């Protein structure tokens, strides 16, 4: 293996890193915000509210991300009137918007299901206490159900974030030069698949490590009240 070719191409990898570091956080932030209302809709007993949310999450969890990406990018590109529309809206021309859209839909669907599960498991005592204090339905949702559910959902959500990072590699299939796209260019330029993809792998590895570390801090911060204090543990033992 000859990693000297990689040194010359490092700027390309950093260019790719920049794109990955845009696409993933953007889609995750948007997806997080959209997932909360979708999760609430999924908990509704009214079928008119529940079913659209169910259909959405069912579709986006039921099909591969690659299929969704191709449907949005290649599919929409073949529709009549698409090229006329690109003249009005320049952002529709590139692949960036479609990648962002596909990632956003996908992560919204998964995150909504994670949140729905966490909300459904809210201890009844918490809600009962809130009712006893005279809180309205919406206030309970805002002050008790959502914050409590988000805390409980953190470990599962951190998984979704890591999956999204790795799923973003698919952006390279629609001409975008993300980390994987950079690796594919290097691979085809030097016929050095090992060197090219190992380098991309190292970048993803570092990013994943940073995410895991960040989520540990976040969990520690938000779940402070659940951690047993040192003294308590000793008391139990003695």
């Amino acid at each position: 293996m000859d990693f000297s070719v990689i040194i010359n191409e490092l700027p390309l990898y950093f260019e790719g890193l920049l794109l990955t570091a845009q696409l993933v956080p953007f889609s995750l932030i948007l997806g997080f915000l959209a997932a909360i209302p979708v999760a609430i809709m999924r908990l509704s007993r009214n079928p008119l509210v529940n079913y659209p949310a169910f259909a959405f999450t069912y579709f986006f969890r039921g099909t591969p991300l690659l299929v969704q990406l191709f449907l949005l990018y290649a599919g929409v590109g073949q529709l009549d009137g698409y090229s006329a529309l690109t003249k009005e809206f320049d952002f529709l021309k590139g692949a960036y918007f479609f990648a962002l859209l596909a990632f956003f839909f996908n992560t919204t669907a998964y995150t909504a299901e994670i949140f729905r599960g966490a909300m459904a498991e809210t201890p009844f005592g918490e809600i009962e206490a809130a009712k006893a204090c005279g809180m309205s339905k919406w206030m309970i949702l805002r002050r008790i159900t959502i914050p409590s559910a988000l805390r409980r959902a953190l470990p599962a959500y951190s998984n979704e974030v890591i999956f999204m990072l790795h799923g973003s590699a698919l952006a390279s299939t629609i001409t975008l030069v993300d980390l994987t796209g950079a690796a594919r260019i290097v691979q085809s330029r030097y016929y050095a698949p090992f060197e090219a993809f190992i380098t991309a792998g190292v970048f993803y590895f570092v990013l994943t490590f940073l995410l895991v570390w960040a989520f540990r801090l976040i969990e520690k911060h938000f779940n402070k009240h659940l951690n047993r204090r040192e003294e308590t543990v000793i008391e139990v033992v003695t």
Partner: protein
Amino acid sequence: MKKFLVAAVAAAMTFTAGSASAQEELRIGVEGAYPPFSSVDPSGNLIGFDIEIANAICDEMKVKCTLVTQDWDGIIPALLAKKYDAIIASMSITEERKQKVDFSEKYYNTPARFLRKKDSGIEITAESLEGKSVGVQRGTIHDTFLTAEFPNVDIKRYGTQDEAYLDMTAGRVDLLLADSIAMDDGFVKTDAGKDYELFGPSYSEPKYFGDGAGIAVRKEDTDLRDRLSAAIKGIRANGVYKSINDKYFDFDIY
């Protein structure tokens, strides 16, 4: 029963060994997504100039051929991994590729050109090309040429030429750069490509475009390489090449 099985297996093995020595088998890597050189027809058969040349060369060498389709950006790695023994996929002979594989003599050579939409008004000048997006197939000589000679354009790299045509018709790229014949027959002459045209100069600098398209083999297979070169000469001499050439092109592309 056991003895019988052993005997049957032994017999079968002698039989296959015997037939293998009677006719050597050669596996050839082709792309299958680069019309008119190599594509898959609606019923799933491989068709095109590369395919027919591959079959003609196998007949000339008197070997049995199996064609294996492989995406372009993995086509050399798969040769090195012995998924097949030779590549007949319009692969241009270049110095970079020669570091990994060996080539037969060329079997054709055509220039590269730009493709534009007929009413686009784009010209090949520094000002006109500034900021325009140009689609190219990733890892091709056209990619190398465009990257080095046109630093002001926004290069979009595609896995296959078909994807580049799709984005051209969707208006996502302003220009394409590829082999002139491949685009003429594979796109401009088709229904989808009727609003598009090749324009500008023909590019064939050997520095980028090499010495034409050859058959790639692993470096250690020098014997196979020489036999393939001889077979190309053979079909050139006996008229088989010409009859295939005339089916696809109006002029001799050798």
